[in-house]
């Protein structure tokens, strides 16, 4: 379609190329630049360079110190295992769901339940999950109240178990919705129905046909999202603090402790650890890639041999258990936190709180209206900035075609693949240098780095799917590209645009480390409060902030849907 456009728009090629340069410049300045600086600002201390702490010459010392950190090997192994296991499990669940239930009402039911979960911050899900399964958690309380469990909870490591199983399961709850959304996006680009029809006419069973015909076409599009899941689950800090093992913790937590140590010299080895974390993520991706190749060649051989497989019973079981469990566990965990926020008291022998009240809400929110205001304003600002940049990028892609698309895809994924602890310290130093730390601009900018990828992922598919003839016709009638964008494309794409905005809003609300590092501690959001107060041990207070973390994104989505109206669906949005 890009080639078709070209002759029409030659007259405007001059300002088109200015537009392209501006877009590239903005992308470089606001997105790529700070990330690179952040990485450099972390690598230099790892090599011994941090003049303020007396590090003025290159030295291998930080890495030597890192090797002496107790538990490093096991912590690295845990991170590697968590990354691979979480990704494999989430991927299997999503594939089983799509293979078995695609095209049935169940698929859209689960999809409708799963999508809102994507907007709930990881921390809220993790806290709810932890309370659900802990030895003294809700499940135990229900059993104890009905006399099925003893008066004292058993002393067994269910949460924070040494092998990181609770962490893997907790992360899976959040990664399944993400991968499912990405799968839906990818399915929009492949003629799924046509392929399946042909395969079924040839006599293949439904889910087998999906696995053999559709999945191989979808996978290339899922590769980057999967790498993002690998990187995230191998390097997450906040969720690992809640669900992960303690002796030793995962590598990211170990490194995080190093950055947090009052003895400032620890920053050197912590930076080296952040570099190791980068390497570890590369290794995880490499291992996954090897697995990809192996599975692909096996699968190809089987497909060429005529695909005798009949996996549906197993697949059905997986699909039913896996995706159903993800939805149920997440929702029940979140409900538990809402209950806690309203509880006066909730002892271990009761299935439900004794007495409900709004006291804790009142206590926490008195005089804290600013907190919600800050969170919302920050989220609106960063999501809008990201939206503008993403639209500019997408417009450029439409004109430049597949090559620009591939380039952008990789670029956009960089902040999702880099571990946050790997570059946030560097960004903090950068912001201080340019005098933007602890300012709104610096904070919005930092949030933009994490918000932009999701806005792009959410909007790119509907944007590309819009019939190019609308635009072509308008251009032929003499409208400028800007007015086409504003008067034709934006209204047509209003719903996906607002949904992308709401998703960006949700992502911003959930940011902890970036807010902490860039905000100079002067900006409190519901998420920084949630993590800070999770140290208080008062589940009722934690419940209030976990609920707020859910509530704000939900309001964002509700606003997006209300604004576009239920009836006006763009054809592709309900694919």
């Amino acid at each position, binding site marked *: 379609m890009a080639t078709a456009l070209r002759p029409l728009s030659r007259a405007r090629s001059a300002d088109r190329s200015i537009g392209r340069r501006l877009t590239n410049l903005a992308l470089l300045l606001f997105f790529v630049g700070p990330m690179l600086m952040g990485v450099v600002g972390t690598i230099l201390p790892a090599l011994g360079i941090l003049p303020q702490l007396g590090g003025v010459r290159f030295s291998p010392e930080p890495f030597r110190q890192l090797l002496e950190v107790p538990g490093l090997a096991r912590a690295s192994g845990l991170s590697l295992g968590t990354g691979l296991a979480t990704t494999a499990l989430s991927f299997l669940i999503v594939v089983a769901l799509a293979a078995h239930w695609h095209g049935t009402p169940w698929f859209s039911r689960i999809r409708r339940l799963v999508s809102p979960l994507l907007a709930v911050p990881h921390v809220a899900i993790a806290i709810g999950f932890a309370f659900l399964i802990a030895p003294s958690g809700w499940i135990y309380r229900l059993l104890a109240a009905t006399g099925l469990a003893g008066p004292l909870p058993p002393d067994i490591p269910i949460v924070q178990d040494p092998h990181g199983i609770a962490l893997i399961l907790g992360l899976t709850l959040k990664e399944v919705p993400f991968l499912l959304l990405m799968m839906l996006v990818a399915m929009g680009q492949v003629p799924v129905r046509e392929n399946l029809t042909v395969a079924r006419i040839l006599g293949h069973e439904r889910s087998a046909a999906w696995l053999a015909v559709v999945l191989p076409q979808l996978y290339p599009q899922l590769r980057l999202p999967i790498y993002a899941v690998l990187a995230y689950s191998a390097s997450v800090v906040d969720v690992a603090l809640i669900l992960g093992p303690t002796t030793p913790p995962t590598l990211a937590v170990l490194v995080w402790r190093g950055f947090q140590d009052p003895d400032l010299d620890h920053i050197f080895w912590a930076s080296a650890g952040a570099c190791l974390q980068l390497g570890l993520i590369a290794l995880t991706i490499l291992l996954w890639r090897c697995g990809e190749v192996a599975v692909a060649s096996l699968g190809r051989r089987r497909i060429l041999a005529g695909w005798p497989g009949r996996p549906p019973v197993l697949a059905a079981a997986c699909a039913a258990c896996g995706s159903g469990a993800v939805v149920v566990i997440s929702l029940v965990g979140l409900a538990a936190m809402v209950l806690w926020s309203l509880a006066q008291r909730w002892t271990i022998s009761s299935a439900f709180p004794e007495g409900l009240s709004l006291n804790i809400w009142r206590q926490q929110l008195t005089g804290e209206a600013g907190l919600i205001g800050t969170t919302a304003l920050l989220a609106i600002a960063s999501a809008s900035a990201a939206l503008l940049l993403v639209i500019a990028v997408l417009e450029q892609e439409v004109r430049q075609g597949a090559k620009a698309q591939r380039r952008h895809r990789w670029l956009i994924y960089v902040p999702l693949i880099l571990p946050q602890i790997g570059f946030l310290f560097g960004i903090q130093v950068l912001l201080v240098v340019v005098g933007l730390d602890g300012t709104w601009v610096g904070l919005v900018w930092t949030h933009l780095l994490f918000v932009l990828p999701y806005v792009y992922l959410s909007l790119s598919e509907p944007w590309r799917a819009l019939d190019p003839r609308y635009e072509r016709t308008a251009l032929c009638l003499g409208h400028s590209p800007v007015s086409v964008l504003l008067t034709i494309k934006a209204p047509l794409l209003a719903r996906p645009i607002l949904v992308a905005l709401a998703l960006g809003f949700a992502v911003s609300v959930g940011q902890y480390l970036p807010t902490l590092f860039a905000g100079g*501690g002067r900006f409190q959001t519901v998420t920084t409060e949630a993590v800070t*107060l999770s140290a208080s041990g008062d589940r009722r207070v934690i419940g209030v902030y976990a609920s707020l973390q859910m509530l704000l994104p939900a309001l964002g989505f509700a606003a997006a849907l209300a604004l576009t109206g239920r009836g006006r669906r763009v054809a592709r949005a309900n694919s």
Partner: protein
Amino acid sequence: MRFGRFILVMAVCVMAALGGPASAADGWDKTLSSARGKEVYWNAWAGDPSVNAYIAWVADEVRRRFDITLHHVKIGDTAEAVSRVLAEAAAGRKVGGSVDLIWINGENFLALKESGLLYGPFAQSLPNYSLVDTEAKPTTRIDATVPTEGYESPWGSAQFVMIVDSARVQMPPAGVAELLAWAQANPGRLTYPLPPDFIGTTFLKQALYELNPESLTILQQPLDGADFETVTAPLWAYLDALHPHLWRAGKGFPRNGPAARRLIADGEADIAFSFQPSEASAAIAQGLLPETARTAAFAAGSIGNSHFLAIPANASQPEAALVVADFLLSPEAQARKQDPGVWGDFTVLALRRLDPADRERFESLPLGPATLPPDKLGPTFPEPHPSWTVRMEQEWQRRYGR
């Protein structure tokens, strides 16, 4: 003329250092007037809602009295503020820093003091400093063996105690040896927070002091040259014996003090540790502990320390920070802080130095259902030099953290 002014300034400084409030009044008036209308960003650990509520009260008061806008920068760990001050120093920001006041002590204080990133000395210039009980509470002058030298102003004092659920623990253990016996008899019902959380680390120090009484004096000197292995050997032998009987068989630990305390409420443990003799009462009042929770003291004595306020060298509003630090030392603010219904943190003031009305503020405070009176807490042990603390934390990680 110039020389004369120099002498005058010197005299004011000396008199301020001696603690004469009237003599420093002029200088203090100047501080008060330049603090007016300023904003103070106070970085303070915010893991306890009752502490946060107290700080919110302070903010209201200093706005009303001194026209200062106090922002509580809520942090999960004081080290966050320390690393922020460092990041600013790393970027060369000498003035206009983002932190005006830090709630601090121990290793964090030592780190900033050694890097020369603290404002001061200032503590002695605060009018209310003269009320501080510097003799009977030496920890107000010496922070974990490090002389404060006026670079931090005392704010509250603490002593290490146990919290037990009296419904399940009839006779609280009297010391660490008894704790081991109790754990053997009640496997899986005792734990301590993961070092380097300060409650967890304090438990290690307490155990070492009790198991090797000589360490009390040895640990007052920096580690350099001392025989760490021999001095601490009894501690590791003790932990080796204790860990198999702990919660999760010693393979997992709660993240921090409040998380360990919550295990009592969750019925997963029966004993927790605290640095605040009034914590149990406050937690009962908030519904965070069962009514049967009680405080128990270490019979042989336990570690006591003070916590402080410091001002970074690059603070944007050091004068306003001084005014806030002084208000926090006032009898009114200190008495409110000690009220178990508010927070329950013990004062650093000498009651004998207060006028009768102010003394009455303290003497009329209720104790709370689970708090021991100060004379039942046993003697206080000083904190060891931070170099020992750091080495013990490392050794713990090496032995049990891998």
